[in-house]
């Protein structure tokens, strides 16, 4: 009886541990960009010839970009430029024509249109 109780407890704690370890879902870039996490939300920034894309994944689920607003704040050489991103299909936002210089500090801020929640992350471009 005691043994089976111990086994059950061991299984339960192992399950709890494994659930915790997986709590943040995907944390690796999905589009060849660079990644920053804010808790369980992954922001992926991708510099492309035509501009800069941002992809958002929240606990393994792609976020619907049209339900959010997104802004990039690029600080370089003592000046900040705020750039509103355009929501595209799926979880992608895009800032057309934007170039990110090496060493720039890039703040990403998103706002949920329904709840008003604002949060984000900051990248240092290498």
């Amino acid at each position, binding site marked *: 009886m005691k043994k089976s109780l111990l086994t059950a407890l061991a299984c339960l704690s192992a399950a709890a541990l494994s659930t915790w370890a*997986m*709590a943040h879902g995907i944390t690796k870039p999905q589009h060849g960009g660079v990644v920053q996490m804010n*808790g369980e939300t992954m922001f992926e920034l991708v510099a492309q010839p035509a501009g800069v894309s941002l992809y958002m994944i929240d606990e393994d689920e792609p976020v619907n970009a049209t339900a959010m607003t997104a802004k990039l704040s690029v*600080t370089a050489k003592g000046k900040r430029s705020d750039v509103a991103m355009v929501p595209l299909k799926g979880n992608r936002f895009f800032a057309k024509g934007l170039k990110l210089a090496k060493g720039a*500090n890039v*703040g990403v801020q998103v706002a949920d249109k329904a709840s008003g929640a*604002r949060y984000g992350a900051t990248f240092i471009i290498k």
Partner: protein
Amino acid sequence: MKLYRIARFATVAGVLAASLATVSAEAHGIWFAQRAKQLALIYGIGADDLEMVKRLPQVEKIEAYDADYHPIKATARVSGPVVLIDSDAQPTVVAAVMPYGIWSRVGTGEFEKKTLKEMPNATVSTHNIKYAVAIVGPLSKPLAALPGQTVQIVPAGPIPTTLGTPLKYVVLYNGKPVAGAKVINDMVNDPDAKEVETGADGSVTLPVRNQGLNVIRAVYVGPTDQPELYRQVEHTATLAFTLAHAPE
């Protein structure tokens, strides 16, 4: 006779200095922390996350700053029992100031929210002001003395990535290092820790305590600016920052 007078004067001066130097009316403070991924302003001490919403009218200033410490517009938003901070862009640093009234007492009695005019026989009368600064993005230059932060804790070097690493902090009073500020390393998880006083250069060095949220607190008792109302100003400042946990 002369010796007696000197000794008596020294005793009175000593008692007065001790009362000015050690009386702290209120250990609570304000700090920034994450709530549901958003930035929130907290009032409390230790695990006491107290009612910030009812205290929000007392908050005098909320500011956000970019990586060059240029201001970003920021406002408070009540969301249920929590006060969230909305900024117009992703900030590197956020700051707040909350005057917390004038408190007086007689002897070892309870503090009452009264001025010296209302309690002329008070032995302690203090104006309390709370300050909070949080580093929420990577710093590309040393943290500046921020407007409105009469007392501010600044890290004197880069924020380490691992807990246990020593970090030197400087406590500023009106933008300059101040000796005698009392510092604790973790207002949330170790609120009763023995306070460490800043040295002549205004600094203390402490190991970073948490691989997560760190809230450093400094209390500095400064001179009164309205002697008819209170005898001292108690400035309680916090500096919050987080160390990231290991990738999963």
